[in-house]
Every structure is written in C-alpha cells, then in structure tokens.
C-alpha cells in the first residue's frame, strides 16, 4: 500500500489525482521522508513548466489585486497560530484549503461590485465567518448577479446562489437612512413582501448575507422606521427582479 502511495507523488504534484486519492496521499506524506523529498523536488520541476506558458496579464489586474490586498487580512504565521486557543485551531484545520482563497475571491467580487469598505473594521473572527458564507455564495458557478441604482444615492448588487437561496447584498455610497430610520430588505413574491433583515451599513457600505425564501420573484430595499416594519411602508429605493 505504501509502495502504491509513494508511486503517486508525481500525479499528486501534477494535481492529477481525484480528491480521495489526493487526501490519502496527503495523509501519508508526513510519515514518508522519501515522498516529501519527491513532492518537493517535483513541485519545483512542475513550477518550471509554467514558465513556458508565461503571458502578459491583463492591464487592469495589477491595480485591482493591489487595492484588494490592502483590505484583506493576512493569515497568522504558523508560530502565531500555535497560541490560538484549541477551538479556533480546530476550526482552522478543518476548513478546506480552498476556503481562505474563496474568501479572497469574495473580496475581489465585493470590490469589483463597489463595496470597497467591506468589513474592514469588523472583528477578525466575525469577519471570517461572514466572509466565508459570502464567499460560498459568490463561488457558486451558477450565481445570479443583478445590479441596480438606489434612488436617493449609491447602488447595490444582489448575488444569489439559486440552489441554496443564500444571497449577498453589496452596496456602497448609501446615504444615511435618516434619524430613527433604517434600510430594510425584502423578498417579494406574488403574495407580497417578506422581511429578510435590516441592513447594517458601515459608512454607507455593506456586504450582507440574506436568506431568500423559495420562489421569490424580486429583492427590494426600503426606508423604514428604526427597528423595521412587518410590511414595507414606503416605496422601495431599490428593486431587483430575479430570473424565474
């Protein structure tokens, strides 16, 4: 068995194993010095192959990446992570490897959609959980994205994962709702509007998770008395129709 696993080092480095085999090989790695050396040398070799594909990146990529990186918290180093309490470590370890990157992608998308101050000031762990959920929505290959101007100022983008109904509402440049007023979010269908939460903008920007009920035909936002209303009492400042 170990012999077989060892023989997979090259396929592992080339990402040519299926997920199950890759996990099995990764589990085998720490106890196999020869495998570790193989993986390391072969990774350097495979990286060299990429040189033959070098291509000038699109012009706008640099500024987008640099701007987004400035807003994105970095991981702690391995040393610092050792002093994190056990619960946090367990969560960190159990998180699939793509998650951190998907969260990064969420910030890219959020940035691209205009929510530039996205969660920058929230406590790190809250931000991480929220950004992971947001990332899951934005990583859905079937995600629906609709954008609309907000009457009164600013604009909003609404991204929904059709399979789960989980959605993200991104907005920027939103004026203050006014004294004793709040922005309330609605899922709208033929029967009327159902509240899906109060918006919690930070300096006019928000990236907020929304759970849309099945069959919603539209997403809307209105200005309501502080604390929200059971039903909208004003005309919506934003209305986004969803594809059937």
């Amino acid at each position, binding site marked *: 068995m170990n012999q077989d696993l060892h*023989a*997979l*080092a*090259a*396929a592992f*480095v*080339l*990402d*040519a*194993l*299926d997920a199950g085999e890759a996990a099995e090989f990764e589990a085998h790695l720490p106890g196999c010095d020869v495998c570790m*050396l193989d993986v*390391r*040398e*072969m*990774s*350097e*070799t*495979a*990286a*060299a*192959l*990429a*040189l*033959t*594909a*070098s*291509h*000038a*990146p*699109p012009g706008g*990529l*640099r500024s*987008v*990446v*640099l701007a*987004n*990186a*400035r807003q*994105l*918290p*970095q*991981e*702690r*180093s*391995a040393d*610092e992570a050792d002093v994190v309490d056990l619960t946090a470590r367990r969560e960190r370890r159990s998180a699939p*490897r*793509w998650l*951190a*990157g*998907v969260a*990064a*992608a969420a*910030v*890219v998308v959020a940035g691209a959609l205009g929510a530039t101050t996205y969660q920058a000031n929230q406590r790190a762990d809250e931000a991480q959980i929220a950004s992971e959920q947001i990332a899951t929505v934005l990583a859905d*290959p079937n995600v629906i994205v609709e954008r609309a101007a907000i009457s009164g100022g600013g604009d909003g983008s609404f991204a929904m994962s059709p399979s789960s109904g989980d959605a993200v509402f991104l907005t920027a440049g939103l004026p203050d709702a006014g004294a004793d007023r709040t922005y309330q979010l609605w899922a709208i269908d033929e029967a009327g509007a159902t509240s899906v939460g109060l918006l919690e903008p930070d300096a006019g920007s928000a990236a907020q998770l929304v759970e849309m009920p099945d069959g919603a035909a539209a997403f809307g936002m209105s200005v309501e008395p502080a604390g929200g209303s059971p039903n909208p009492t004003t005309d919506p400042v934003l209305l986004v129709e969803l594809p059937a």
Partner: protein
Amino acid sequence: MGMAGGAMPSRARLHLVPDLPAESDAPKSLDSGTSARRQLDPLLLRVAKGDDGAFAEVFDVVTPAVFGLAKRVLRQAEHAEEVAQEVLLEVWQQAPRFDPARGSGFAWVMTMAHRRAVDRVRATQAASDREVRDGRRSPARDHDQVAEAVEGRLDAEAVHDCIDALTDIQRESVTLAYFGGFTYPEVAEQLQTPLGTIKTRMRDGLIRLRDCLGVTA
C-alpha cells in the same frame, strides 16, 4: 518526436544568471535561474509582514506565469484573470505561512496557481468537452514572447528543451495533466494506455525533467 539520441540539453543554461549570490542555506532550485525569481523568497518574507510594496514586486515577478498557466489550463482569458486574482490574493493572505526552508517561493506560488486553475477547469468544463475541443496538448512554443524578459525567455527555452527530451508518452502524460488539467485516469483514457503505465510515465517524466533542469531540494 520521441527520444533524440544524445541530445539532452545542457542544464547549465538554467544557471546562467548568477548576478546575486544565493543565500548559502537556501534550497538551490530552479529559481536560481533568474534574479527576479531568486529575489522572490525575501520579498515573500516581507509580504508576510504586511509590506504592500513588496507585494507589488511579487505581483510583477509571478503574475505572467500565474496568468499564463491559468490561461493555458482554462483556455479563456476571462476565467484565467479571475483565477489569477484569486491566486495573488491567496499569496498575500498566506504569505505568513510561507517557509523558504520547505521550497522556493516560486514553486509555492505556482502550486497554488495550478490547484486553482485545475479546480476551476474541472468545476466548469467536463473532461470530454476539453478533449474534443482541444485534442492533445503539444508543448507548443506559444508563450507570449513580448511579455517575457530576456532572462525569463532563456529559462522558458531551457524548459522547452528538457520537455522535448522526454519520450512521447512521458511528455504527453506530464503535459496533459499539467496544462490540460486531466486526472491520470483521464490521461490514460486519452492516450489509450494502462493506468499503471501512465502513473509510471508521469513519475519518470518528472524525474527526467528534474534532472534535466538541475532541480535539487
């Protein structure tokens, strides 16, 4: 083109640019080939401290390879641009975890880039579609020469020479997996070759490339 008798390219070509002394305890690897990639490790250590100026330099060094690889695997510049964004931001986020004692910064970045490109192509395009559309991947010298610095091109040429020195089945096995994003069973099917043979050819192909390129850990 098969095995060209006695035509192993010189590995010395990858060590042409010794303009900076390598740190004596750093792993010697392919990135000693160009000064830009050799400077990547110290740059990444600065990025790990939140240095966004260093990150801009890292971006300039690695992005042509990251974007080019993603473009080759995904065949759509738009998707490749998204993947490149994700990879570069992952570099920024994960930089505190980068450990130069465990491999070069360039390999560290390209490992992330390849995984993401392959994950994306498998999520969005069925292997059968890719096969029909694309056929076999020849190691064509189609990289963007304008985009490359002269020293980068020298390296790319050396890698091409080493790829050319593989047997046909070694070359197909390695390049279908690396540039095509195919799993080894998919490679076996395309080449109509038994699974075990493909596994072995990937292995000896990479080992031969490693030796040709002078990679040491």
